[in-house]
């Protein structure tokens, strides 16, 4: 109880404008509830209502931002206590929101990109019979994601954490009649659940060790906890992040998640939800800063996933899966950035925000292309679309320049800083990020070239056309973000000083100077881009995918055998185990029970033969019995 009082004292209680932060969750939740409970009655206007709720949430976020900007940096973090959620013994968890620079940054990203995607979906989902449900789920996702980033304690974060998992499950499996979609949805949920176990274990350790689960309380007590436990907590949090952010070894669900409608891929599986792992690690920086071993694990996982995602991206012909590989890879960058400690947090989060813009923009572009190409996702059947889909081409192109890290586009500012911070840690980590940048340039150029350049390889009845304004306007806005967002955040927003009070910041001092690093990064990117352009824009792209390819390409096409390993290590033995246990339960455990019942039955059927109906034989039995009794009585008396 005392600890609880302290941690409330650590952050000011919200007053004035900031106390309306609960609206951020309440508005979209109301939208989702009204659409789902209202049922068919809301079919006519439900989607507009959902968009309205999303926009209203964005407006609230902007109001909160202006309010926060008016305060001194150290007074910006506030707590909005709503009600007591769980209180048993010393386990006390409030429903309370924490509004600070970190959470507000996420809120702004989610509500802005999210609102744009809501609008985009008006066009994209226009003819879907379950449009109302789609928008209800999107609103529900908003509520859950905002709960995740606004919670002031780990348990409430967990509510948002699994809430977004549910939204993701519902939206990946939105076209449930497709078995592939239903399977992908289930896979995503279960992979996430494995991660969630990590989160719940981390929470349990926190309460056991320090008696509280609020961010402020845990951070304050972290220096007093032993290294051993801090490392364990850090690893458990990393497991959680791996599940949600599709990091190795829980990465395989993200590629399948592309079964969902494209706006979902843009919002949930690129811009917001999958980056929650980065948020979690940044939020728990007090733990990671004190647990270098956990940080090394974070860097290791981020580095592996960064390369894995990039390699997968090079071999995919499905435009969405190629983008998904890219997302994995980019989140690998962010996770790696958070593993670097105070030199990396700010830039990981910076990259997260810029990535949210350019990747969402590219996914929407991909959706626009699919919209014009009869929902085909095969890039080998695209080509030369720059003429027929000019807006999509330009917006996608801006996103492309941003992700490559070409100055002055958004990705340049954020990715470059992560590379620099990585070199600050060690040459080896730095080289990984550098190689990743080169491979990224290659596969993105490949995607760009196969889609918009070269010769048209369209199927016969396909007539590409530009998408309606509801779709292109959000793409344009995101493209503007991809182009200028980085500069704006860095120079106008001063992202380092903005986030520093929450996650801490430290200049990278060991890294090679920018004068060496920046040109070499750009050189590597240009080399990667050139290889991609030469192979896929200047040469003919064969329509059927080539069969005689190197083992590396085969491996990349098969997601580096992620599914095969899961199947061999988990699925098959698991199925065998359940089948064996079902057999064991019915034959052995139940067999003992039924067997003893059967034995009694057999004995009874023999014994009942004694009831032969002859009164005189009964009389004889009685006489013998009586005689025996007398004999026993006599024997007992004699002895």
């Amino acid at each position, binding site marked *: 109880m005392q600890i609880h009082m302290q941690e409330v004292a650590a952050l000011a209680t919200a007053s004035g404008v900031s106390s309306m932060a609960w609206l951020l969750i309440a508005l979209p939740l109301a939208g989702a509830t009204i659409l789902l409970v209202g049922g068919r009655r809301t079919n006519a206007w439900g989607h507009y209502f959902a968009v309205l709720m999303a926009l209203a949430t964005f407006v609230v976020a902007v109001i909160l931002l202006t309010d926060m900007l008016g305060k001194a940096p150290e007074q910006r973090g506030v707590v909005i206590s709503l009600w007591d959620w769980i209180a048993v013994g010393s386990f006390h968890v409030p429903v309370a929101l924490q509004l600070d620079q970190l959470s507000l940054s996420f809120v702004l990203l989610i509500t802005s990109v999210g609102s744009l995607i809501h609008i985009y979906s008006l066009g994209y989902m226009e003819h879907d019979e379950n449009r109302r449900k789609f928008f209800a789920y999107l609103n529900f996702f908003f509520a859950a994601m905002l709960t995740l980033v606004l919670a002031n304690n780990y348990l409430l974060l967990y509510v948002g954490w699994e809430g977004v998992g549910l939204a993701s499950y519902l939206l990946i499996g939105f076209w449930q009649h497709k078995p592939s979609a239903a399977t992908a949805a289930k896979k995503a949920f279960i992979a996430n659940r494995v991660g969630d176990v990590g989160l719940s274990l981390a929470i349990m350790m926190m309460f056991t060790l320090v008696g509280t689960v609020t961010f402020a309380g845990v951070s304050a007590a972290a220096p007093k906890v032993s290294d051993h436990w801090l490392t364990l907590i850090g690893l458990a949090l990393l497991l959680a992040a791996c599940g949600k952010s599709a990091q190795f070894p829980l990465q395989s669900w993200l590629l399948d998640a592309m079964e969902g409608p494209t706006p979902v891929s843009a919002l949930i599986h690129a811009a917001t939800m999958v980056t929650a792992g980065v948020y979690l690690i940044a939020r728990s920086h007090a733990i990671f800063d004190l647990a270098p071993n956990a940080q090394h694990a974070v860097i290791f996982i981020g580095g592996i996933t960064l390369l894995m995602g990039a390699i997968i991206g090079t071999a995919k012909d499905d435009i969405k899966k190629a983008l998904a590989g890219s997302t994995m890879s980019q989140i690998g960058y962010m996770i790696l950035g958070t593993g670097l400690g105070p030199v990396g947090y700010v830039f990981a989060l910076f990259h997260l925000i810029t990535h949210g813009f350019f990747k969402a923009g590219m996914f929407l572009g991909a959706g626009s292309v699919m919209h014009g190409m009869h929902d085909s996702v095969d890039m080998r059947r695209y080509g030369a679309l720059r003429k027929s889909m000019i807006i999509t081409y330009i917006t996608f192109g801006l996103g492309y320049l941003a992700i490559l890290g070409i100055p002055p586009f958004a990705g340049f500012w954020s990715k470059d800083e992560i590379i620099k911070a990585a070199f600050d840690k060690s040459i080896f980590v730095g080289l990984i990020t550098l190689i990743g940048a080169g491979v990224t340039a290659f596969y993105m150029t490949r995607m760009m070239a196969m889609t918009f350049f070269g010769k048209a390889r369209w199927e016969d009845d396909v007539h590409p056309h530009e998408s309606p304004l509801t779709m292109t306007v959000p793409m344009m806005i995101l493209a503007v973000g991809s182009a200028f967002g980085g500069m704006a955040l860095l120079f106008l927003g001063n992202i380092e000083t903005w986030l520093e009070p929450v996650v801490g910041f430290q200049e990278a001092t060991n890294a090679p100077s920018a004068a060496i690093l920046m040109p070499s990064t750009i050189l590597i990117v240009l080399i990667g881009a050139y290889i991609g352009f030469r192979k896929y824009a200047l040469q003919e792209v064969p329509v059927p995918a080539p069969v005689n390819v190197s083992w590396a390409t085969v491996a990349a096409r098969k997601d580096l055998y992620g599914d095969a390993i899961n199947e061999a290590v988990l699925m098959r033995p698991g199925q065998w185990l359940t089948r064996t246990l079902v057999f064991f339960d019915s034959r052995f455990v139940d067999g003992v029970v039924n067997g003893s019942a059967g034995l009694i039955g057999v004995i009874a059927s023999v014994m009942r033969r004694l*009831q*032969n*109906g*002859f*009164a*005189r034989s009964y*009389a004889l039995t009685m006489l013998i019995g009586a005689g025996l009794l007398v004999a026993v009585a006599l024997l007992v008396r004699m002895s």
Partner: protein
Amino acid sequence: MSMNSYVMLSAVLFSIGAVGVLTRRNAIVAFMSVEMMLNAANLAFVAFAKANGDLTGQVVAFFVMVVAAAEVVVGLAIIMAIFRSRHSASIDDVSLLKY
């Protein structure tokens, strides 16, 4: 007479009754044998009551008589009913009540 004679007589009567029940097929005879066993027991009760100077044994003997009377009524009625339907008083013929 000594106790021994009463007990001996009781035992002899009981044995005759028991053998009668076991060996005779006729329901009436078997019934009479049962009565003989009951009375053998009565004799023992009364003899011991006298020997111990306690009335309990005599009371029990009266109980046995009352129960025996009731039993005779019911038993004979059953035998009559069976005889009417089957024209036989053999108890081996009525062995239908079995497994």
